[in-house]
């Protein structure tokens, strides 16, 4: 794939990438947009270079996951060092859903989001990658940066916990 093809390929992946960024930011929409913007800049500027060892989708999702972690670390640093906001910028990710998300009512997706919010971050990520993004567990392991066995454990335990939580959640 030549660099000139990258924008078109990213555009194809955009909806899935936004969903993955939302999951990485606990459905904080503004934080997800920040993470996605920073990830696209890395990819388009060549700071994150695709070398063909995995699928482009897996690679892009990995970049988004790393960027979300960086943004979370910067937000934590900003909380402790007020001067750092000058250097790091005004954006902040606090892990809470934005007001629009919080207003989402009692529909089925809101139930799912609440249940996902009660899982561990790794379980939520693996389930999201498998069910939402249609990746295999091996691809999900590559994106999350864990071994296949670990990803499989997170998948099985997370799925069981999610089913239990959805049964407990009021309709």
């Amino acid at each position: 794939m030549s660099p000139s093809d990258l924008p078109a390929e990213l555009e194809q992946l955009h909806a899935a990438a936004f969903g993955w960024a939302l999951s990485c930011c606990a459905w904080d929409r503004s934080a997800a947009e920040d993470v996605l913007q920073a990830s696209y800049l890395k990819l388009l500027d060549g700071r994150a270079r695709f070398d063909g060892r995995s699928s482009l989708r897996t690679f892009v999702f990995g970049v988004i996951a790393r960027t979300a972690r960086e943004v979370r670390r910067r937000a934590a640093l900003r909380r402790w060092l007020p001067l750092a906001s000058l250097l790091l910028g005004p954006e902040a990710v606090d892990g809470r859903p934005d007001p629009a998300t919080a207003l989402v009512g009692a529909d089925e997706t809101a139930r799912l989001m609440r249940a996902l919010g009660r899982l561990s971050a790794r379980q939520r990520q693996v389930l999201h990658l498998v069910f939402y993004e249609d990746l295999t567990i091996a691809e999900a392991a590559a994106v999350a940066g864990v071994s296949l066995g670990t990803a499989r454990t997170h998948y099985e335990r997370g799925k069981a916990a999610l089913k239990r939580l959805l049964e407990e959640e009021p309709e």
Partner: protein
Amino acid sequence: MIERDDQHLKRAFAALRRKDAAASQSFQATVAAARARRAGVPRRRALALAAVVVVAVIAVVVASTWRVQKNDRLVIDLATVRWQAPTDFLLKLPGVELLRSVPQLGPRGLDRRIL
């Protein structure tokens, strides 16, 4: 990969995906916002650099002033100071002046009657 009894999870995630997709910005808008945000970064870095320089200058000035004040406090010329204890007179022996002065020898100084 996804078992038959997981189909309801699959459907729930598909509904969530449709909802997220409807709420997402277009790719072009996202890239344009990213480029606009990057354009603001050099100005922010310049501001941060200026703030760091100001803080460093203030720190140097404060440190040098403090050092001068500290040196002023320590300058004591001990050679110009002679301290006497209140009990120094006890160390003075009777006739100590005679011991510190040189006796005059000669015809006027000698008393032949004593000799």
